[in-house]
């Protein structure tokens, strides 16, 4: 770079330009999230305290975990619509298995993870080997898992979730300086986010996921084992749904509709977090903030007194708006 004294003003401009470029490079989701969060803070004192913010993060962490899992599948160019049903299965199934016996907790968790693994493998198999477009395959799986869960428990919720189970979603590390408490849920999210970050952004597997989402044929001819990679993607998504389900069971009661609509909420979070539907682009960080943004929007609407059922309608609008924004802005670029 030129550093003569004569070019002082242009250097100043250059610095401004660099800053401006930096600002432009920050994804929109961060501005939206912090914007909404500031409004929330202004409207309600809850969001001004560390405690309130931690409670918000605790509530949102399960959705963020589901969203990271969904992002992996979306990045391959597919969809996973079965995750809501998996959450239902986890909550109903584990309440039956636990039935208020805390010692059963590990058994229940391993059972659920095993079921998640199985569901993910079947999803992956159906898409990779039977060549069914994933949104139909996983919609079928959604029915299957939900029906299976209800059949298992006999049509209505039975049993109870134990306290030690519910702590995953509800509990806090207490007595932390400055912020008082730190939710387990957020800790689990951070660990999973870190792991996924390395898998997705720093590993062969992550690059192969993006590669097949971008151009399957080219990936195949470059030696990527497309079917294997796709199978693993669906397995990760299912396992994350199980983990998210365990946490969601922490605060909701046991009911048969607990997982309903989560798949759409999750896809919305991903889209808001800049994931490209059709594959090839995504970011763990942005998707987490996408999930935070969704929750912040719902909280805001709550504060403004919008009836709860409109949540669905708002979600629909957000999805359409976010996808349209991407579609129109890339069209402009070209």
């Amino acid at each position, binding site marked *: 770079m030129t550093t003569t004294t004569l070019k002082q003003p242009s250097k100043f401009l250059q610095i401004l330009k660099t800053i401006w470029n930096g600002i432009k490079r920050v994804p929109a989701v961060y501005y939206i999230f912090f914007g909404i969060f500031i409004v929330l803070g202004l409207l309600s004192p809850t969001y001004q305290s560390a405690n309130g913010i931690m409670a918000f993060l605790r509530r949102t962490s399960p959705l963020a975990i589901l969203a990271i899992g969904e992002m992996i599948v979306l990045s391959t160019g597919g969809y996973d619509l079965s995750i809501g049903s998996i959450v239902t299965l986890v909550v109903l199934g584990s309440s039956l298995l636990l039935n208020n016996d805390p010692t059963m907790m590990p058994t229940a968790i391993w059972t659920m993870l095993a079921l998640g693994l199985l569901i993910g493998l079947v999803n992956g198999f159906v898409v990779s*080997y*039977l060549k069914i*477009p994933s949104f139909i395959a996983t919609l*079928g799986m959604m029915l*299957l898992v939900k029906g299976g869960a*209800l059949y298992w428990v006999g049509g209505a919720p039975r049993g109870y979730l134990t306290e030690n189970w519910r702590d995953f979603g509800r509990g806090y590390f207490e007595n932390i300086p400055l912020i008082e408490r730190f939710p387990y849920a957020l800790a689990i999210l951070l660990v999973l986010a870190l792991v996924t970050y390395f898998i997705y952004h720093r590993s062969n597997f992550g690059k192969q996921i993006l590669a097949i989402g971008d151009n399957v044929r080219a990936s195949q001819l470059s030696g990527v084992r497309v079917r294997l990679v796709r199978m693993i993607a669906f397995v990760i998504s299912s396992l994350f749904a199980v983990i998210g389900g365990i946490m969601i069971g922490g605060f909701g009661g046991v009911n048969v509709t607990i997982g309903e609509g989560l798949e*759409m909420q999750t896809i919305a979070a991903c889209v808001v977090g800049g994931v490209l*539907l*059709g594959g090839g682009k995504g970011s763990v960080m942005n998707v987490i903030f996408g999930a935070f943004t969704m929750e912040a929007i719902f909280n805001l609407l709550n504060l403004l007194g919008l009836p709860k059922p409109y949540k669905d309608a708002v979600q629909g609008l957000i999805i*359409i708006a976010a996808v349209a924004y991407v579609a129109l802005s890339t069209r402009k670029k070209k």
Partner: protein
Amino acid sequence: MTTTSISDNRFKRFMRNINIPPVYYFLVVIFLGGGILDQIFSDGQIFTNQAILLNIIVRSVALGIVAVGQTLVIVGASIDLSVAYTISITAVMSSYIMQGETKNVPLAILVVFGIGILIGLINGLIITKLKINSFIATLGTSLIIKGIINATFSNYTGSVPKSFQFFGYSTLGPIPVAIIVLILVVFAGWFLLNRTKFGAHLYGVGGNVEVGRLSGLRTDRVLIGAHILCSMSAVLTGLFLVSRLQSGAPWVGPDGLYDLESIATTVVGGTALAGGKGGVWGTLAGVLIFGVLDTVFNQLGMNPYLKTVLRGAIIVLAVASYTYRSKKEAA
């Protein structure tokens, strides 16, 4: 069979003209298989009781009507996942407006078709003008409709007058009105696709949008038209359902899985999800296959949740029977 070569030719030409898809053989096999299972494990009424046979078709009417609409959209390489909630909104709105009074029927029908046209128009506009993938776009509108219905109605609302129930229950001679309506809708779908410019253009749009555009088709309009017709078919299904249920509830659409099943039956009927080929006769066979299976499950006294599981599995397997041979990787 001993037929002369000429009549054989004529038969072949006839078959080609009406385009009977191979899925009908599949229908026959499933019917016979289901009937045999029924003979062995249950009272064997499928083969002996004519009422059950008729009932299979009547049960298929609701799905059949909306599936014809879905076929149009899929031929155009689009998809409509909002049909389930369109059915719901039709059911609740029509019974809400009718309030058991015959004099309100025309207004109710007018209003629900208005709503249907609006939904189809919005779907079509989002897909064509905002260039959003139809799957995401219609899931979005579906959520919006769902939010609006659930915020407005929470249970059975209003009721339909006796006079309106003729659609669901009465017969014309030995044939239920519902079946006649279904046949008319299927025929209309066939006519639209095979005998009109709209149909030819829809195949063009679905086969290759760029080709359509270069051939001077108003591709956006054609696709929007298909979406409007699809939503209208969902409205007709909604009216049929409410005339049978006597009162509309917000869950009739999603609980009947009309979104997923209309797509599955269309695909089973040989219409490719990628668009550009297929037709309504195949879809009708797909619908009847689902109807037969449903009846067989009922005859065998199956647990309703297990039935949901099987429905999910059957949808997947049915679609797989068409896709697994394809060389392209699915995503």
